[in-house]
């Protein structure tokens, strides 16, 4: 029983990722093939497993102290004004 992910679903996600698929039309089929392979996860029988996460002890974290940064990173940017990054218009 193959439950193939449709091209429309992939195109929708691409749009959300701000990827213009017109530039990348042959990718949809490949993404489909990879997703089809991922179906193997259904056979792993892991539904009842707990998801473990990586833990870091609080005492291992560095102090919550302001460390001054004296390099002017903005100078690397093309569009900025005083100390603000200039971004395109939001509609």
């Amino acid at each position, binding site marked *: 029983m193959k439950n193939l*992910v449709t091209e429309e*679903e*992939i195109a929708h*996600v*691409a749009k*959300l*990722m*701000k*990827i*213009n698929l017109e*530039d*990348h039309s*042959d*990718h949809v089929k*490949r*993404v489909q*093939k*990879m*997703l089809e*392979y*991922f179906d*193997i*996860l*259904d*056979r*792993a029988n*892991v*539904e009842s*497993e*707990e*998801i*473990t996460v*990586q833990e*870091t002890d609080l005492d*291992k*974290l*560095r102090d919550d102290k302001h460390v001054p940064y004296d*390099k002017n*990173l903005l100078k*690397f*940017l*093309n*569009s900025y004004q005083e100390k603000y*990054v*200039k*971004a*395109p*218009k*939001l*509609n």
Partner: protein
Amino acid sequence: MDLGISALNYVNGIKNNEFTVEEFTLKSLERISQVDEKLHAFLRVNDLAIKNAREIDTKIKSNQNVGKCYGMPISIKDNICIEGSKTTCASKVLENFIAPYTSTVISKLNSEDAIIIGKTNLDEFAMGLSTEFSAYGPSRNPWNTDYVPGGSSGGSGVSVSANECIASLGSDTGGSIRNPASFCSVVGLKPTYGLVSRYGLVSYANSIEQIGPMAKTVKDSAFLLNIISGIDSNDNTTVDNKNQDYLTDIDAGINGKKIGIVTEMTNPDGLSTDVLDATNDAIKTFEKLGANCEQVSLEMVRYAVAAYYTITSTEAGSNLARYDNIRYGYEFDSSGFEFNSYISQARSKFGPEVIRRMILGGFVPSAGHAGKYFSKALKVKSKLIAEIKHVFEKFDYLISPTVPIQPFKFGEKINDPVSFMMVDFNTVTANLTGIPAISVPYKITNGLPIGIQIMANHEEEHSLLQAAYALEKTVDLPEVPV
């Protein structure tokens, strides 16, 4: 002067006045200009290398303190930042990106007087296993230039194998150090997650990736690990290894050790005949060295590739969101654009594999699909960690061939995404579980290398390197034909 010497022999050569740092650096740069047009290991060489070499020579002559590296030329994968110089990740998106700070591993190498000889090629943003996805063209395997060198740290593997430098640093998210190490016949070590600081490594899938050494010998790998490992306040995932010396007792041998042959990774259906033969041969070698080898099954390995690609794509989708042409890229002006179209235009500079992983990375954790893909992948990862923990109660090491096949020809696999993913089959488990793994050159068959992978439990690099050294000592391989 032999450019093919190990790091440890280089240090001896300098100490015994056999050559100067400047002479060796010059010779290495000459070698690069001779062979790299063909091999394309390097994206850039360091213009200051000779100047740095002279400075170190001066320090040596005037009996000042000199760092452990004594000016040895080391190449660096181009996803590791060095302040004031380009770090492109082999992507057009970062074509003009100048790193504003230096990674911890580079600071450590600099403080030990290494010379960064250049930045090496990789698959764009380290996504791939052949360097065919580099935006600047692939690197070529020095054993046979019709074949891929492996990846993603392919340039690093080639640069060491072809004697363009003494050693290199790569990064390994799913095999990206070990795969090119195996394909180019060098030693490649993926350390325990957290043993080496990732500060200054451009993130792809930061929950599982590590920086590690690629070198000519196992001892050289231990030497470099001594320098680059250790806790770092700039990377909260790092662990304190108490300045462990990985070279001490490296020749202790493996007599009486228990080795598990991972059944899923040595399945004859998945391996090429030559790789299977080499693996069986290596098992016999381990037994001759006094180890007890037996089969062990890790059921979750079967699902590891799918889990790996699901998890890494998800992290890549998030990590690569920052390349929006506002903070990085900055090629065209933001005025006259609407936000979404501006970002998607910026994204069009990504290469095909990066685009695919970003789409996948948007898809597999999204509402309605996360249950089928992302959560299941995380559960496979958890169960795999439990299985690994369990087997290391009984075994000291796990072994497999590093890659199920030998190097393949350019273009041979690029159009089949699933067979491409399968090349990672034996390497992703160490990343998903955080354990250390090393690829040791074992055989040259049909003129192309085969590496054997050894894995050990968390933070057992010391013991892992002992096993790797024991295996290496049994091997006598021909010189690279370039």
